[in-house]
């Protein structure tokens, strides 16, 4: 416990960096997945191509992707930007199919009603289809954010500071306290982000009286 109190500043800094490295790619991935998922939903050939490409991207181990990306991006090999880009790609790969499936799950009657009310295409998408698809997208986002919290820790092997740095420190010093602190904080972050999305989902879908959350 002494270790925690004497290292509290560092733990807070690592947690802050972990939050940034997790949330930035999750939000970016979602923002990219919305238009791409919409396109995949609209065109059958696009769906097959995007889902196939996303599946292949998801198979590349994160540690390898962190290191291969700088070759493509021209960034420095130990730059945190690589982590953000890699996790954005994973999030996008996961969510693009979810968004497409979510939009396809909107009942035909709902779409027809919106059309009959004179909604234009983009109005129908933004005001009707997307809101109705929110619960499906939220379910995908929960998986993505929880996975991201865990994948970020791998960056510790490259020396990029975040909560995973406590794991490598625990290993080097053969100490349980930093290790357990890191694991507990990761789980807490995952639970908090998960809860945040559940809350946002409820907020965005007030017409759903009873939201199925799991």
């Amino acid at each position, binding site marked *: 416990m002494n270790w925690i109190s004497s290292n509290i500043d560092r733990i807070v800094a690592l947690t802050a960096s972990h939050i940034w490295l997790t949330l930035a790619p999750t939000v970016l991935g979602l923002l990219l997945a919305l238009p791409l998922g919409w396109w995949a939903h609209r065109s059958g050939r696009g769906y097959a191509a995007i889902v196939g490409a996303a*599946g*292949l991207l*998801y*198979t*590349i*181990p*994160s*540690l*390898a*992707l962190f*290191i*291969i990306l700088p*070759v493509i991006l021209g960034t420095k*090999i130990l730059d945190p930007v690589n982590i953000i880009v890699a996790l954005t790609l*994973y999030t996008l790969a*996961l969510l693009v*199919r*979810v968004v497409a499936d979510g939009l396809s799950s909107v009942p035909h009657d709902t779409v027809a009603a919106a059309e009959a009310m004179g909604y234009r295409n983009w109005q129908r998408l933004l005001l009707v289809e997307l809101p109705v698809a929110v619960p499906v997208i939220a*379910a*995908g986002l929960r*998986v993505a954010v*929880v*996975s*991201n*919290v*865990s*994948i970020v*820790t*791998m960056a*510790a*092997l*490259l*020396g990029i500071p975040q*909560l*995973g740095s406590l*794991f*490598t420190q*625990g*290993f080097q010093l*053969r100490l*349980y306290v930093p*290790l*357990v602190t*890191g*694991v507990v904080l*990761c*789980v807490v972050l*995952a*639970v908090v982000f*998960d809860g945040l999305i559940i809350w946002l989902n409820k907020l965005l879908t007030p017409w759903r009286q009873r939201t199925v959350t*799991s």
Partner: protein
Amino acid sequence: MNIFGWLTDPINWSGSGGIPAQIGYHLLYCFLALAIALAIGVPLGILIGYTGKGETVVAGMANALRALPTLGLLVMLFLIISPVVAGKLVYVVPTIIVLVLLAVPPILSGTYAGIQNADPDAVGAAQGMGFTKRQTLLRVQLPCALPLMISGVRSSTLQIVSTATVAAYLGLQGLGRFIIDGRAQANFAEMIGGSIVVAILALILELSFGALGRIIVSPGLRRVSGKSSSPLATAGAT
């Protein structure tokens, strides 16, 4: 930084630390872990799918395991187990345990979901034809469950390949060695070269699972298999 040079240098393609040897180690650990995970996950999945009991417990455990950071779990189990095992196995045993732990949930959920989602009409028809419960399970429910089972095994395999790479940090042999050793010596060509080999290995495994699915899944099931497998059920952090 000459990646192509590193990948084509004959020195890196021979000897006990060369690329072929490390691919061999990597595959050996992966297949060992996958075999153990299958031996645990499939029977347990059949039991849960068949009886319908324990489903919520398993789903909860799978979610909890996703939130646990793999690297932290790996280091923690290593610190706990390594004093117990001696000699060369000190790196292998804790790693295999973590690999199995991560690989069981997707196999388990793929198996029980597959059995539960088996077409009720097909099951009913089998019963009507006088199949015993055992025959129904082996000849109808299990073949119907194959697409979801394969998708579970596929996620498990990719998870294992990925985690085995990370385990090089603890001292395990395998393709992760190039990444960890390259980092230690600031040899970026080696790090990138090793990463490319791991990525290719993962892609080859992924594509072979697609081919496997086409060979062993009954033609009657293929139409539905694409849509029915939810990407979320088996997705995990790699």
